[in-house]
């Protein structure tokens, strides 16, 4: 029953100084509300961007390269010897992934896995006396549309038309504009091998990524093999797996089995993912600062109350209240402010999310407007609430402790 007395006194004191209580509660509410909103926006946009990263490109790419050069035989034979070799040259061989057909077949047997052999290289696209250098990707349209979002980005034509058209190419809109190329026009493609072919534009895409839009050309794998003079060669295996989060592990396993450099989407975008970490640190420190200010508000108010209530504390103690009872009185006030602030903050967060949800942004270069990506999860509310409670209790703890250390005699002696 006695704890109810402490709570009763706490409630009475809070009610007595209604305005300050409301102000400090609102401080906490603002902190929680903005935490919920900004963290929903931040993690929403992070998810959105990661989703794009995952969808725009294959999860895993096997390349016909090796991470480390093969050791020279002399080092293998005499591992202990002091051997020095200079001016060694990499072995010349026809680049490409050995036996890629069997590897594709093996990968494709697993459920949820799409594997495609591709040949990449460079060429020059020439039209009306203008040249643009381009990256060539010889692909399988049937699989490519699952591996990347390129098919969704088609402005006109289709990736699938590569299969029906003879010697078709799909180019980006940027390149089309620079060269003045239109659908069904015949462009000249010149490879470094000196092979020149006339190819028909069967599709124009726009991804919003300038590099791709101005410099990427898709064609059938066999056309690329002819153009680059690498018959039957594929130098990339592009893989999509069921769970993108597993890409790093799968890539590591494939690399250790086949020896080829195998990159997961995480590895390719490591710098980008690193940015998210920095962004999160910035977000959480700003929101943390809001909460700290709110906590200082609570600390300030409860400290003031403790100072003003020294007489009441003294009389309660002389009446027989224990130091811990007194501490509870003030701790409860902090908890109360924290809990009410948390609930109000949740409401504020919901309102902010509603408002943010109606905001439409126009990405430059894209016709259609986009809604802000928001992540409305229990996590934001949970962490925001926890943050509020912990800071409120911590802010109340210090003055509450101080209150419990009041020596009644000092106060009463001073008053009489």
């Amino acid at each position: 029953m006695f704890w109810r007395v402490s709570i009763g006194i706490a409630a009475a004191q809070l009610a007595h100084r209604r305005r300050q209580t409301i102000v400090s509660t609102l401080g906490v509410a603002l902190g929680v509300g903005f935490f919920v909103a900004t963290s929903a926006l931040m993690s929403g946009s992070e998810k959105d961007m990661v989703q794009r990263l995952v969808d725009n490109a294959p999860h895993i790419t096997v390349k016909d390269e090796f991470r480390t050069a093969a050791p020279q035989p002399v080092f293998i034979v005499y591992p202990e010897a002091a051997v020095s070799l200079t001016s060694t040259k990499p072995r010349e061989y026809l680049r490409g992934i050995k036996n890629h057909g069997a590897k594709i077949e093996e990968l494709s047997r697993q459920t949820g896995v799409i594997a495609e052999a591709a040949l990449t290289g460079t060429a020059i696209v020439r039209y009306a006396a203008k040249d643009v250098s381009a990256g060539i990707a010889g692909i399988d349209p049937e699989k490519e549309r699952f591996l990347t979002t390129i098919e969704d980005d088609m402005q006109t034509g289709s990736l699938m038309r590569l299969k029906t058209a003879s010697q078709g190419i799909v180019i980006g809109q940027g390149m089309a504009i620079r060269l003045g190329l239109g659908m069904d026009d015949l462009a000249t493609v010149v490879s470094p091998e000196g092979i020149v072919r006339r190819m028909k534009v069967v599709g124009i895409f726009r991804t919003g990524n300038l590099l791709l839009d101005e410099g990427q050309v898709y064609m059938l794998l066999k056309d690329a093999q002819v153009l680059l003079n690498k018959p039957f060669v594929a130098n990339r295996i592009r893989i999509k797996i069921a769970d993108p989060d597993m890409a790093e592990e799968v890539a590591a396993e494939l690399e250790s089995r086949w020896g080829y450099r195998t990159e997961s989407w995480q590895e390719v975008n490591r710098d980008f993912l690193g940015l998210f970490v920095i962004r999160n640190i910035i977000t959480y420190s700003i929101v943390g600062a809001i909460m700290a200010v709110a906590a200082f508000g609570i600390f300030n108010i409860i400290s003031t109350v403790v100072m003003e209530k020294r007489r009441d504390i003294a009389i309660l103690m002389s009446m027989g209240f224990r130091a811990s009872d007194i501490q509870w009185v003030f701790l409860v006030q902090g908890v109360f402010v924290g809990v009410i602030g948390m609930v109000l903050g949740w409401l504020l967060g919901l309102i902010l999310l509603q408002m943010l949800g109606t905001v439409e942004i126009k990405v430059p270069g894209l016709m259609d407007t986009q809604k802000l990506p928001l992540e409305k999860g229990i996590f934001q509310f949970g962490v925001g609430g926890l943050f509020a409670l912990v800071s409120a209790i911590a802010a109340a703890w210090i003055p509450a402790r101080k209150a419990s250390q009041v020596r009644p005699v000092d106060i009463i002696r001073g008053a009489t």
Partner: protein
Amino acid sequence: MTGAPIVELKGVTRVLQDAVPVTLVQDIDLVINRGEFVSITGASGSGKSSLLYLLGLLDLPTRGHVLIEGEDTAGFTPDHLADIRLAKLGFVFQFHFLLPEFTVLENVTLPMLRLGRLGEKEIHDRGMSLLADFQIADQANKRPDQLSGGQRQRVAVARALANDPPLVLADEPTGNLDMRNSEIVQAIFAELSAKQGRTVIAVTHDKDFADSAPRNVHLVDGRIERDIRR
């Protein structure tokens, strides 16, 4: 109940540790028996309030022992001392020290709620009957600041009696009151001792009040100079 004195001081000295140590009371030996009404007098600074705080376990002696009902309180934890104050002691100060956020009745019932010995209904009834004893039952739901000085002091006395303590300690209870109220409060203390059998110890500089007590302890410079029983 034991036959031991309700409160006893043995060789009690209290020194205030300051830049220059101040001796508040020195070598006090005092026995107060159950049911006594004792007034403590002395010039200001003679240590009479300090003596009261020691008797009421609000302050701890630098040397010597304070015995409550024959039990030495030396070494008791602060919580234990608080519990004794709650159940056995009632304080009345010069200033009423009522909690401004609570009504008169709530102020009186607070110690009972803390003790938790009675049910809610009984606590309410006892609070009302205490207020009735002092003719302030009609003020029960007012806030302390809506009462007159004399009424407030009566509420403070009612609160001191909330847990039916055998020992009531008062520090200048009439110090802030006019003649008429002073007489009322004085009469209340006399009655607490004479009719209710409580032990009352009151510090006062009011000669009338001091003389109304059957026993008077007079302090000079922190020592007992006279201890008279009439």
